């Protein structure tokens, strides 16, 4: 855990779980495995809050616990690692990917699971069905709006939707009015069936995007109950005999449980009725077992990462070559999805015949043209595709690790280009290609005048992007008799840039928090005004009253609010973008770590 990682994790925990969890979490990150008493003593947080924080961290998979190092009787120790917490940056990307693959239902399932950490299938299905039902209502109502059924109500709903997206605060609005204005019989049909949601859930499990949480042994007493299958430690093993097993080591990891869940999503009626109904239903539902108690599901981040990696490779091919080549690579990757292990260097060899047969039917390309494309891909210096043999018309593989290395190299080059200019980037690329060069050679190969080349080299050297290698002619390293060679080491440079990325995101988050804090008064005022507006409109007010309330915000304040919204959106988008670079660099570093 570097200092930057810990700082970023602290900020992420603070934004999503509050300051108490941040304190406990950063303490665990810095201190390694600790037991409860030490945590309480060193953080100074009251006992129950520490317990709650630990529960929250364990629920979300950020913290693992195991029996103490001294043996079976010692207190349980808690351990956190940065990786899981840093995933929080990527949550929007996971949700969006699921939306593109599985539609709104899949999107909501993943969102629920990410918010809650892990849940059983039945509870997920129920919550998602309820949310979808509410969304369907909202869409239906907006259809009514477009037909001009209710003018006041339309304004009210627009305000609500705007608030949801702009001010990242959920304002509960009164559904009573909604229910009254729309004929009830029309709303009856708008319910999401549990079966559909369960189908989407099963599909997600089949494609391994969701996995079961590893079954827990008796809390704290891990020594007695060893897992049945030999556990391959997915997480870095502490020097404890029982390392926390990865979810994949259990055979039922991807098995959907048989569960009896029949029903439809519930509409959220007006508050009093809803509460009574919920109370009444609760007594019934609680006793109703759905057949899947104790089986919790969590999101399988590794699978998403494989998907992102494949996407990156395909888009790189599309950018460098053309659409058809990217389709061929996409087909190859799709065919090898299940046969390739996550840490494989390259996919299993596929024959050209198979590739040709599996191309999407919309691409009717002749067989010799496919062969030509494959030859082109193999000959390309980026080396995405390699040839592994001649049988079956040619056996081809996708070189995954090499592709990742090339993508990381492209990232480094673009960083140098954007920070130091295109000529420095030329020098950088030259050094990457030619490994070791003297200063004179750099000037010659890069075709840059000596003085400027020297300056650029020294700037890169000062930023630690380029290193100096000495080769002495005499054993005493006399400077006049030593060769000084410039070189670039890709892996250490990538690590350094990754830390820079973490620092960047942390700075972005801090700046965003600072901006919100500075304008807190203004934000609160605008929220109050919107709430007043909404309630006025709900109770049916005249336009003069509404304009009067709207004028409570002055024009300058509106401008300030607008500028603030713009800044915060920019900072948020920047975080998302930096996270893409983080993903590439992390994948590259992990791929080298696994092969070495």
């Amino acid at each position, binding site marked *: 855990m570097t200092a930057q990682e810990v700082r970023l994790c602290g900020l992420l925990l603070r*934004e*999503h*779980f*509050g*300051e108490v*969890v941040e304190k406990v979490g950063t303490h665990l990150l810095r201190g390694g495995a600790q037991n*409860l*008493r030490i945590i*309480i*003593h060193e953080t100074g947080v*009251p*006992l*129950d*809050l520490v*317990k709650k924080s*630990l*529960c*929250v961290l*364990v629920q*979300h998979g950020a913290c693992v*616990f195991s029996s103490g190092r001294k043996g079976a009787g010692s*207190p*349980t120790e808690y351990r956190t690692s940065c990786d899981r917490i840093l995933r929080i940056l990527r*949550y*929007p990307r996971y*949700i*969006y990917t699921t939306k593109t693959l599985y539609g709104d239902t899949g999107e909501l399932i993943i*969102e629920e699971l*990410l*918010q*809650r950490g892990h*849940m059983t299938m039945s509870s997920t299905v*129920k*919550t998602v069905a309820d949310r979808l039902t509410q969304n369907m209502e909202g869409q239906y109502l907006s259809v009514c709006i477009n037909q001009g059924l209710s003018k006041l109500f339309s304004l009210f709903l627009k305000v609500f939707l705007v608030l*949801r*997206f702009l001010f990242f605060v*959920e304002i509960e609005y009164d559904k009573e009015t909604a229910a009254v204005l729309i004929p009830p019989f029309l709303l009856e049909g708008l319910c999401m069936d549990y079966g559909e949601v369960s189908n989407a859930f099963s599909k997600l499990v089949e494609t391994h995007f969701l996995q079961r*949480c590893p079954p827990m042994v008796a*809390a704290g007493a891990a020594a007695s109950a060893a897992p049945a299958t030999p556990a391959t430690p997915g997480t870095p093993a502490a020097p404890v005999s029982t390392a926390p097993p990865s979810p994949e080591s259990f055979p039922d990891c991807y098995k959907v449980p048989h569960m009896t869940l029949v029903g439809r999503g519930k509409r959220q009626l007006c508050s009093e009725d809803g509460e009574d109904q919920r*109370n009444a239903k609760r007594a019934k539902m609680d006793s109703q077992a759905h057949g899947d108690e*104790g089986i919790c599901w969590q999101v399988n981040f590794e699978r998403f990462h494989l998907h992102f990696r494949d996407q990156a490779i395909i888009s790189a091919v599309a950018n460098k070559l053309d659409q058809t080549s990217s389709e061929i690579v996409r087909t190859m990757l799709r065919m090898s999805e299940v046969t390739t292990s996550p840490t494989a260097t390259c996919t299993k060899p596929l024959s050209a015949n198979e590739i040709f047969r599996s191309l999407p039917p919309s691409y009717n390309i002749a067989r010799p043209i496919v062969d030509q494309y494959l030859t082109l891909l193999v000959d390309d210096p980026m080396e995405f595709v390699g040839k592994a043999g001649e049988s079956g018309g040619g056996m081809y593989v996708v070189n995954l690790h090499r592709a990742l290395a090339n993508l990381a190299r492209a990232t480094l080059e673009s960083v140098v280009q954007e920070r130091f*200019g295109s000529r420095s980037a030329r020098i950088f690329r030259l050094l990457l290609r030619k490994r070791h060069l003297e*200063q004179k050679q750099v000037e010659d190969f890069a075709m840059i005048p000596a003085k400027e080349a020297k*300056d650029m080299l*020294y*700037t890169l*050297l*000062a930023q630690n992007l380029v*290193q100096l290698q*000495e*080769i*002495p002619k*005499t*054993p*005493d*390293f006399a*400077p006049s008799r030593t*060769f000084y060679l410039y070189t670039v080491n890709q892996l250490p440079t990538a690590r350094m840039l990754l830390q820079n990325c973490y620092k960047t995101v942390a700075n972005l988050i801090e700046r965003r928090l600072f901006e919100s804090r500075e304008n807190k008064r203004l934000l609160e005022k605008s929220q109050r005004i919107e709430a007043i507006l909404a309630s006025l409109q709900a109770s049916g007010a005249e336009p003069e009253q509404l304009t009067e309330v709207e004028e409570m915000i002055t024009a300058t304040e509106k401008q300030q609010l607008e500028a603030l919204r713009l800044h915060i959106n920019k900072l*948020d*988008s920047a975080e998302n973008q930096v996270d893409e670079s983080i993903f590439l660099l992390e994948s590259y570093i992990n791929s080298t770590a696994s092969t070495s």
Partner: protein
Amino acid sequence: MSRSVTLRNPKRRSCNFGVSRADTQTTRFKGKRYQHKRVMLTDPDSPPSSCWSTWSPLTEPVLGVMAGRGGGRGRRMMSFSVEAVCINRGESLPPSIQQPTPLFPVMEQKPLPLTGGEEAEYLLALKQEFRGAMKTLPFFIQPTAAKKDVERYSDKYHSGEQTDGVTDWSPEWKRFPKELRVKKPCRNGLSAVTRSDKPPLGQNNNNNKTDKEEVLLKLETLQKKEEPSSEEEEEEEKKKKQEEEEADGEEEYDEEEFEEETDYIMSYFDNGEEFGGDSDGDMDEAVY
């Protein structure tokens, strides 16, 4: 012809800088073979490259490497040949900087604008919604509010507001270590968070005050009476602590007395405020 790096000649005053044989390697360069060590850019003994006085791009990287190596020469001029790094006679070194670099240095290259587009906007909206949703979930733990100097009349009403809404979730305790279990008293209001599991012997249930539920309550308390006796052997000390934290809400007054069969009636100190504020004094007790 390879020459060894061994600096064992006692007449040489330069030491071998802690480099052992194993750290050397042989490189072919310009037709000859040289044996050398792999050096770090900055020698660990040299001072860190701060941006303070006499920094210059020329002296910093090269002399940092040279720092240890000048011993034995004793001359104050730059100890490397200027031609080696291509400073011609006519050129002057860049001026040395004598103050720290500015906090926001002027950027020669402006950064690219952010990628816009539908996808980026959707991701942005997802991110902000997620953050907002997390703030409302029970996982967002608020620190205990600082005690005000004087008790105000409105505190009674304010505390009710804060505990409203979805403030409770009961995790599946089988997946959690025993020591993390907090025996929380039941709360008014139901949590919209669907619970992952609800074993009938669940310790902390969200019970309601409606008449129908009291029957269930009584059954549960009877069950709970069986529970503590089995656990008491293990968690005697911990119980004491937990019970003291449970002071919460005047409405739960009766139930708690009814439920707990131990001698420590935490309602003795019931003040209706947030729980947990009084357990600080028990830090000395061992909790295992």
